[in-house]
């Protein structure tokens, strides 16, 4: 387990996490770092959960067992909390703070967790929690859909992954639509900066 770094990304269908993993895949290729990833899309287009596992380094497995993620990126706060079973006491966690309550909440089949409690539950059990309002930052950057880029910026800032900003930005240039590259890079930089101020 030592020479590999394991990242879990959890999101709700449509939040752009598949693009985020494809950017990281390209960045790893550019950096010459072996990478394996796997995705379970659980009918993502129908509002289900999408979970991606990315293993950087020489490991051959493309999935990550419970308790073995080094870093977790949650695109939606309650999904971050659900992903906690993948984490251990050393795990670094990055989460978006804008809730997308599942429909079960609207029909009274569940209660959305209190945001302060949610953050406390994560912070008290893991190494570091970087909680950012990715939706607001993405809007400021110029496109509310750039939430994924904001979170990538924050992820790279934590330094857990063996990837540099330069590699990821280069990958953003080739993997995202030309018209959005500038906004995406800005969103990435803003995410990076916010995570840096966040202690």
């Amino acid at each position: 387990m030592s020479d590999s770094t394991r990242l879990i990304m959890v999101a709700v269908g449509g939040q752009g996490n598949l693009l985020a993993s494809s950017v990281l895949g390209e960045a790893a290729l550019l950096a010459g770092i072996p990478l394996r990833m796997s995705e379970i899309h659980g009918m993502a287009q129908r509002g289900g959960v999408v979970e991606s596992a990315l293993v950087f380094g020489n490991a051959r497995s493309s999935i990550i067992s419970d308790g073995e993620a080094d870093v977790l990126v949650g695109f939606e706060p309650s999904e971050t909390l659900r992903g906690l079973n993948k984490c251990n006491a050393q795990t670094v966690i990055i989460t978006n703070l804008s809730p997308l309550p599942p429909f079960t909440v609207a029909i009274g089949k569940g209660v959305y967790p209190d945001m302060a409690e949610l953050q406390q539950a994560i912070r008290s059990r893991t190494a570091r929690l970087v909680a950012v309002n990715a939706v607001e930052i993405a809007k400021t950057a110029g496109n509310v859909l750039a939430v994924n880029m904001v979170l990538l910026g924050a992820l790279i800032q934590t330094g857990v992954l063996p990837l540099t900003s330069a590699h990821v930005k280069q990958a953003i240039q080739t993997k995202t639509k030309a018209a959005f590259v500038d906004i995406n890079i800005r969103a990435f930089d803003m995410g990076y900066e916010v995570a840096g101020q966040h202690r």
Partner: protein
Amino acid sequence: MHKLLTDQPGLQMVMLGNEAIARGAIEAGVAVAATYPGTPSSEIANNFFQISRETDLYFEYSTNEKVALEVAAAAANSGVRSMCIMKHVGMNVAADALMTLAYVGVKGGLVIVSADDPSMFSSQNEQDNRYYGKLSGLPVLEPSSVEEAGEMISHAFELSETLQEPVIFRTTTRINHSTAVVTLRTIRKQISRGDFIKDPFNYVTVPAVSRRLHVKLLAHLDQAARCSDESPYNIVSGNGSWGVICSGVSFAYVSDAVQDLGIGDQIRILRIGFSHPMPAGVIKTFLASCQKVLVVEEGEPYMEESVKAFAQEAGLTLPIQGKGEGLFSRLYEFDPRMVREVMASYFGVPCPAKPRLDLSGVPEVPQRPPNLCAGCSHRATYYAVKKAAEGMQTIYPTDIGCYTLGFLPPLGMGDFLICMGSSTGTSCGFSRVTDKKVISFIGDSTFFHSGIPGLINAVFNNHNFTLVILDNGVTAMTGHQPNPGVDMKLLNFQDYGQVSIEAVVRALGVPHVAVIQPYKVKKSIETLKEAFNFKGVSVVISREMCTLYAKGFKKTKTRPYYVSDKCKNHRECISQLACPAFFLDAAGAVKIDPVMCAGCAVCAQICPENAILPVKA
């Protein structure tokens, strides 16, 4: 140009397992490919569909897996390299063709991809299709990684041509839906035209012919066993005396476990990539150099059974274990930690582990099951059926597609499902032995796939039920693939036919047929009531394009709806319709998310206060 056609050997690309398989087939010069879409195999075919528009590859979405295999079988027997792609349960549909195709064999290479789904991420069972190799007498190859999947395809075609038999290429979800860096190899020139040489005494499987063909199949099987023993895909590594025999993705978990446990010096691994027939010689030699052996395989104890039999033949008595208490389960997929822990305990070494978090006291997270899209026509149909059947005792057999999700609350429409097409056949049985009103659901693609024979059966045997055909003009669940009812002109394809479901149903002699537009709620309820009151077989076709698919054709977004201040907050819309565009704001008032709302107007028609109105332009 499609990225999988890139003709630059040596170039590295990040690819999904299914892309690597498609690329491997292109490199092998595949000329004909046929499929019925099914997760986790679908992206292989989706890529072929695009590639077929740029090259001489002939690709088709067939009506079902059996037809797909027959198409490929004929092409391969005309000397053309062919491929047939399906999910594991599709093999059951194709099995009738498969079993005797094995007798007949092939001339050009034929590779059948069976994508198994341990853990059932999107399937109704987790059957282990390696047994189809045993059952049919055909060779089975199993890759352990994305890169290997791509590379092994060429070998599968060669093997098929050497043995003159189809080859089963078995993957699992974690191969199909994993991603890794793949190195491109040269593309073999495709030969897309073939010829069929008549030879009825070897091709027409009457008993006298088949008796001889079975002898031939067994001879091919013997030859396959020799190939397996010499196969570069059955690989031994390490020199230790603790043996591990593994296949598929388990090999990755075993390799990582050996590193993590630091037992490289004690371990000897046999990775089986050619898994039917099992390599008897290789296994016996391997066993002879081990003190004890652990078999690591997801699914059934397929290898374990053979390995134990080989040990017996070789007079070896070493301990060999795989499935069982404290070892591996036949249930669900494996993961690295599980394999590491079982290996550590079996070989008696300490297992370094990161302690799991204590999650007691963590706030509960609400479930997030997939849901029918906002504005999905199925939701509208289900609502109308529920209203029309009010007061009746009902049974709702259902079928496979997005609409299966209708079984969840609050719709609760779906009582019985076993396989593709089962809605029609099971309706016959339920209506015969119960006194309840049987109302069943089937989608357009599933109707063509295997729903029609059950309906014919109902007409002939004079059963009594209503079949609602949810015709949304596309195979939605697997990613909007075409089916025979789809208007291909919408996609700018001119050379396709189109089969009308209504014409089929009428031609079958169904005595009561009606068509509804489910967004017209009141009219739909009336029409459904008439059908439910009809004694005998009745069919109602609910026709409305899948709203997610329709988005691709619309220039402007339909106007969304909003909840006006006439709302009395009894939340009937939420409790009865449960469109995911609804939400409760901080004050508990019902609201509609204008971005999600597809403007279908169904909620506006059911709101007793007429409180839901279109947003003004």
